[in-house]
C-alpha cells in the first residue's frame, strides 16, 4: 500500500476506517479532534458508509458507540482526557458489560496542558476499569495498534483504550496502510445477563472481569508492541508509549549502552518486567504522564533500583522531552543558548471582530456599577476574556460549571450572580444546570454567548444551533426573561441596558448573545 504523511490523530482515523468501523462518536477536544475530522472528510473507499457527525458530549458519544457495539458493529469513540471524566459512568460500566462489536476508546491526553485545564493521565482510568490500554510510540504504531485494538476488543470482549499524548496526535510521519477490512454485519447481541447490570448479573460480570485479568496480562507479554532491547551494562529504561522515542533518541545520539524495555500495551506484561528488572540493576522509569507504573514497581516504601519522577530524575509535571531523558540518563549535553530577554510573551487572544469581544465590553461596562465583579466563566474561546484587556471572568473549571457555580453562589447570597457560557458548552452540559436553577427559581443571569459554532476547537457544528431560545423556554425559563441580543459596537448602549435589567431580576434570566464566529463567517 502507498505511504501517507499523517498526523498521529489521522493515522488512528485511517486505521479505524481500515478496521471496518461503522461509526465514530466524539465531541471535539484538543488534541483528539482531528481523528473525527479526518473520518468526516474521508469515507471508506469501498463505498460503505461510516457515521461520523459530532455528538453533544462525550457521554452521549460513548454510549452511542456502545450501542453500535451491541448491534455487532465496530465503533470508535474519541475524546480528550477531561472528556473521559464526562463519559466515565458509561466507561466504567461498559467494562462490566463488555462489548459485542469491537469498541476502541481513544483518549488524547495533554501533558503540559497545551490546551487543557489539567494533565490527568487516562491510563489510571483504564486501570480502574480493568481494561487494556494501547499506547503507541509513533504514527505507524498509532495506525497498527488501532487496527489491533479492534481485534483485541472482539477477542477479549472488552472495550480497549487507545491513549495518545498531544505530541503524537499533532505530529506527522509517513505511515504504511494495510488492506482495509469489511464492516461487521448487523448481529445484535441479545445476551440479557450481560447487558442488564442488575446486581445479580453485575456481580457475575464483575467477577468475570477480574478473572479475565490474567488473559490480559498474557496478551501484553506476547504483544509485538512490547519488547526488550538488550545491553551489557547495568542500566536500563522502562519506556512507556512516546517516552520510548525520547529514550531512543538519546540512546542512539550518544551511543549509550543502555537496555530498553518498551511498553505499549497494558496491563503490565509480568514476564517481560520480571525478566528486565532481574537483569538490570539501575532502572529509569519513563512515563508520559503520571508516575502510575513507577509507583507500582517501586512500591510505597521505595526501591533504590528504580529512578523516575518520585526522586526527581524526571520532572513530576509537564511532558517529557529528549533533553529531560538525556539528563535523567546522565548524558552531558552541550550548553544551549537561552531565550533573549527582549522576547515578549505572545499569549493566544480573541480574534479581531470576535463577537465575544463586544459581549465583554457590555458586561464590563455594567459590572462597573457593582462594588465587586464576579463573572462565572466556562470553557471555550470566551475563556480568553480572562486575559487583558478584559480581565472579565472569575472562574473556569469544567464544561458547564459556569451556570451551576453561579447557582451555588446565588444560593449562598451572592448578588448579582452572573455567568457566561458558549453555545456548544451549553448543550454539552449547561442545560441540566439551568434546569436546576429554574426548579429553585434561583436569581442568576446566564449569558449564552452563541457564535454558532464550537470555535475553540476549530469550528465544529454546535449541537443546538438556532434552538437556544426554545430550549430555555422549554425547560421553564420565563419568556420575558429570555433576551436575545446582538453583540456589536453600535448596540453597546442597548445591550448594557438589557443586561442591567436582567441582573436586577430576582429569578432565572437568560441572555442569548448571538453573532456568528468571525472565523466561520470567513469560510
Amino acid at each position: 500500500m502507498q505511504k501517507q504523511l499523517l498526523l498521529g490523530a489521522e493515522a488512528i482515523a485511517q486505521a479505524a476506517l481500515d478496521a471496518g468501523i461503522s461509526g465514530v462518536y466524539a465531541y471535539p477536544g484538543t488534541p483528539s479532534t482531528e481523528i473525527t475530522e479526518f473520518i468526516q472528510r474521508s469515507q471508506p473507499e469501498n463505498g460503505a458508509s461510516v457515521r461520523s457527525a459530532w455528538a453533544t458530549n462525550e457521554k452521549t458519544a460513548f454510549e452511542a458507540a456502545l450501542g453500535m457495539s451491541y448491534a455487532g458493529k465496530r465503533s470508535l469513540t474519541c475524546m480528550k482526557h477531561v472528556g473521559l471524566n464526562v463519559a466515565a459512568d458509561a466507561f466504567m460500566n461498559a467494562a462490566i458489560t463488555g462489548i459485542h462489536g469491537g469498541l476502541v476508546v481513544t483518549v488524547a491526553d495533554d501533558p503540559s496542558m497545551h490546551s487543557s485545564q489539567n494533565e490527568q493521565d487516562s491510563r489510571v482510568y483504564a486501570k480502574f476499569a480493568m481494561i487494556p490500554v494501547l499506547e503507541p510510540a509513533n504514527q505507524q504504531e498509532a495506525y497498527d495498534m488501532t487496527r489491533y485494538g479492534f481485534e483485541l476488543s472482539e477477542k477479549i470482549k472488552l472495550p480497549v483504550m487507545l491513549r495518545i499524548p498531544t505530541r503524537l496526535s499533532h505530529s506527522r510521519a509517513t505511515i504504511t496502510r494495510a488492506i482495509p477490512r469489511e464492516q461487521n454485519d448487523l448481529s445484535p447481541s441479545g445476551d440479557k445477563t450481560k447487558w442488564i447490570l442488575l446486581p445479580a448479573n453485575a456481580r457475575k460480570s464483575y467477577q468475570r472481569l477480574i478473572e479475565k485479568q490474567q488473559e490480559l496480562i498474557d496478551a501484553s507479554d506476547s504483544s509485538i508492541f512490547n519488547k526488550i532491547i538488550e545491553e551489557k551494562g547495568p542500566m536500563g529504561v522502562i519506556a512507556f508509549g512516546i517516552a520510548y522515542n525520547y529514550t531512543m533518541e538519546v540512546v542512539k545520539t550518544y551511543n549509550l549502552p543502555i537496555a530498553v524495555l518498551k511498553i505499549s500495551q497494558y496491563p503490565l506484561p509480568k514476564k517481560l518486567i520480571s525478566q528486565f528488572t532481574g537483569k538490570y540493576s539501575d532502572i529509569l522509569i519513563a512515563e508520559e504522564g503520571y508516575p502510575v507504573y513507577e509507583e507500582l514497581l517501586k512500591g510505597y516504601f521505595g526501591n533504590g533500583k528504580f529512578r523516575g519522577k518520585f526522586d526527581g530524575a524526571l520532572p513530576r509535571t509537564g511532558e517529557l522531552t529528549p533533553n529531560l531523558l538525556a539528563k535523567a540518563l546522565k548524558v552531558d549535553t552541550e550548553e544551549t543558548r537561552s531565550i533573549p530577554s527582549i522576547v515578549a510573551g505572545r499569549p493566544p487572544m480573541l480574534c479581531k471582530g470576535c463577537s465575544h469581544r463586544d459581549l465583554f465590553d457590555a458586561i464590563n461596562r455594567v459590572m462597573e456599577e457593582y462594588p465587586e465583579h464576579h463573572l462565572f466563566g466556562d470553557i471555550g474561546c470566551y475563556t480568553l476574556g480572562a486575559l487583558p484587556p478584559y480581565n472579565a471572568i472569575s472562574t473556569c473549571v469544567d464544561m458547564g460549571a459556569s451556570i451551576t457555580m453561579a447557582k451555588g453562589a446565588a444560593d449562598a447570597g451572592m448578588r448579582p450572580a452572573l455567568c457566561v457560557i458558549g453555545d456548544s458548552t451549553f448543550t454539552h452540559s449547561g442545560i441540566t444546570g439551568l434546569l436546576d436553577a429554574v426548579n429553585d427559581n434561583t436569581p442568576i443571569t446566564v449569558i449564552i454567548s452563541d457564535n454558532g459554532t464550537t470555535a475553540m476547537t476549530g469550528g465544529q457544528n454546535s449541537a443546538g444551533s438556532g434552538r437556544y431560545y426554545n430550549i430555555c423556554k422549554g425547560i421553564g425559563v420565563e419568556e420575558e426573561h429570555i433576551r436575545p441580543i446582538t453583540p456589536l459596537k453600535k448596540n453597546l448602549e442597548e445591550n448594557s441596558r438589557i443586561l442591567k435589567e436582567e441582573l436586577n431580576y430576582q429569578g432565572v434570566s437568560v441572555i442569548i448573545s448571538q453573532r456568528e464566529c468571525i472565523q466561520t463567517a470567513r469560510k
Partner: protein
Amino acid sequence: MNKNIIIAGVGGQGILTIASIIDLAAMNLGLQVKQAEVHGMSQRGGAVESHLRISSEEIYSDLIPLGKADLILSIEPMEALRYLPFLSPEGVIVTATEPYKNIAHYPEEEKLMDTIKESATHLSVDAGLLARKAGSPKSFNVVMLGAASPYIGIETEELEKAIRLFFGRKGEEIVNVNTKAFRLGKEYATE
C-alpha cells in the same frame, strides 16, 4: 542526510504551508519525515512553531532536542528568537523582517534586529516586498522558503517540484506565483 528545522511564526500566519512543501519534497526523495505542529489554543494569535525533522535514517523523537536545530525559519522576527535554545552552535536563522504586533509591549524593532544579529548566523528578508513582486502578498511564506532553501539540505528542483504538487490543484496561476516567490527568495539568499 539529517536536518532539523524549526519553523516559527504567529497563529494564522500559515507556517504549516512551508512545512508541507518541505515534507512533500523529502517524501519524494524517500527520506523519513517527522513534523510536530501546534494546534488548538495557541492558534488564536499566539506563538506557534513546527519541529520538522528529515533524515535518511529512522527518526525517533517528534521534538527536536535543544541545541540540535540546523535552521530556524521564522516568518516573524521576534518569533525567530523564541526558539534560540533549539539552535545548534552552527545553526542559521532565516527570518522575515516584518513584525506582527498583536501584543501591547512589542520590543523595539531595531533592538530586535540587533539581537538577532548577535545571536547567530542569520539572514533577514523583506518577504513582503518580494511577495508583492512575485504577484501576491500571500506568497510571503514561499518567499521565506526560498530564502531558507540553501539550508534545508534538499535540492532546489525538488523543492520546486513540491511547490507544483502542493499548489497544483489551485491552478496554474497560483503555481507560477509561488514558484516565482520561491525563486525571488532564493535569489535574495544567494546574492
